[in-house]
């Protein structure tokens, strides 16, 4: 198909000339594909930015939280067991595990050095909780812990990000849906413009047929013209869109969504796909419209 499109673009310029150049449908195509490409650049940037955000946030999430138990040495053992028992009965908890002294020492070592006499210090006991995909009810768990093990504190600060990750994922999908809609509207508009161009050239079509032109030959003259216009318009629109994105002010603040809108690294090459998609869309839309109209113009 790509080969076919290149043939069209290279074209036989003589074949192109058989259709007169006048007509505002061609300028309309140029303008609309430019505007649509400009919008598509933003939709693409939004999708990519939302995707980056979702990835970053979901890495941090990792479905784990911790329970910290601070209790006098004598009650520590009992409260730890109580916490583990509560967790065992809590829906949405996949596994729970009290950290051993050795693990806790490893965690503290960077701060206090290797010779920490852990037994003599009132170090809280840590319980690592891994939740299921569905997750547990944080408030309910907190209440039960307060009743069963008053020294236990649930630290679930990463859980608040869950809805944000969902939202970012949704936003990425919406960006791609927008690109799809933009392509579909481009196709619809080019179909109308091509139909109008054919209708304005009924006499030309009649003369071409009388001298033995096939439908595909006649269609090709129109297809070539519209594909080139769509490609040109979309290339200009894409260039402006990309420049606009590049010119957005940048801030250092991590995770700020608006300032994160843009492309990074190889993503800067992705807008190049837009004019190609526009040309392919124009190719098929014009071809379908032309062949349909020619069938009707018996």
């Amino acid at each position: 198909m790509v080969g076919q499109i290149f043939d069209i673009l290279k074209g036989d310029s003589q074949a192109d000339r058989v259709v007169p150049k006048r007509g505002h449908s061609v300028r309309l195509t140029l303008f609309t594909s430019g505007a649509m490409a400009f919008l598509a650049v933003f939709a693409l940037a939004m999708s990519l930015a939302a995707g980056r955000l979702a990835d970053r946030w979901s890495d941090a999430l990792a479905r784990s939280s911790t329970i910290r138990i601070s209790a006098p040495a004598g009650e520590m053992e009992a409260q730890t067991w109580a916490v583990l028992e509560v967790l065992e009965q809590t829906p949405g908890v996949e596994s729970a595990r009290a950290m051993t002294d050795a693990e806790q020492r490893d965690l503290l070592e960077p701060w206090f050095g290797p010779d920490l006499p852990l037994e003599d210090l009132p170090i809280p006991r840590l319980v690592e909780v891994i939740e299921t995909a569905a997750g547990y009810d944080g408030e309910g768990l907190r209440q039960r812990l307060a009743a069963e093990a008053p020294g236990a504190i649930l630290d679930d600060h990463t859980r608040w990000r869950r809805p944000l990750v969902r939202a970012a994922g949704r936003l990425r999908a919406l960006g791609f849906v927008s690109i799809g809609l933009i392509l579909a509207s481009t196709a619809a508009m080019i179909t109308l413009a091509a139909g109008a161009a054919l209708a304005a050239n009924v006499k030309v079509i009649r003369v071409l047929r009388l001298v033995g032109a096939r439908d595909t030959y006649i269609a090709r003259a129109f297809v070539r013209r519209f594909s080139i216009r769509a490609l040109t318009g979309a290339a200009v629109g894409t260039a402006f869109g990309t420049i606009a994105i590049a010119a957005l002010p940048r801030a250092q603040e991590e995770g700020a969504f608006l300032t994160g809108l843009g492309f990074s690294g190889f993503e800067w090459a992705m807008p190049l796909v837009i004019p190609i998609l526009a040309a392919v869309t124009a190719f098929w839309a014009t071809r379908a419209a032309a062949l349909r109209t020619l069938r009707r113009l018996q």
Partner: protein
Amino acid sequence: MRHDGLSLLDWGCVVIELKQAAYGYGGGALLEGMDLQLTQGSFYFLTGPSGAGKTTLLRLCYADLLPTGGSVEIFGKKSTDMTRDGVAAARQRMGVVHQDCEFLDHLPLEENIALPLTVAGRGMAAGNGDLAELMGWVGLTARKNALPPELSGGERQRAALARAVITDPDVIIADEPTGNIDWEMSQRLLQLLVELNRMGKTILVATHDLSLIRAAKSQISARVLRIAGGQLQSAGSEL
């Protein structure tokens, strides 16, 4: 008579055949029970009063109209059974001078005359020598860059004839090719048709111009057909 230049068809075989063909625009029948065989290498004139249906009959012969009764077979295929590509392929083997001489108004005359080559994918280059010679023969060399709307009626007819013969077609169908043309130029155009006929082309010319028919009959054997009252008759003797 020469036999070369005939690649696809044998001398004397039927290229276009009407069998009980009928045609009517909407209401009643304009043409009825038309039986006609055009054989390869023959020359026909079609006469009849204005409005008798000459143009209509010719249009049936190049599948611009489909018969409303009977059948029209072009190169052995019924026009009613042809696909649009089939019609295009058949027209690439025919040269047609239409009565209204339609051109592409945005292209210079030379490109219009080469149009049948272009749409057949044969390119202007292929027939370029022929093109210049042909333009000279029909007296349009000086007008080759003119746009069709700038041409006189006679110039258009000469251009239409040049366009009809540029592809070296098997069959040439011409509707009043000399209607607006002075006697001298008509003789030149007739000469072209006569030469093509001698090369084995089938020629069908609708005309009112009896002097043209007489001039042709003095050089070749041409059959004269006459339409009147929706019927086709042979009209040889009275000329």
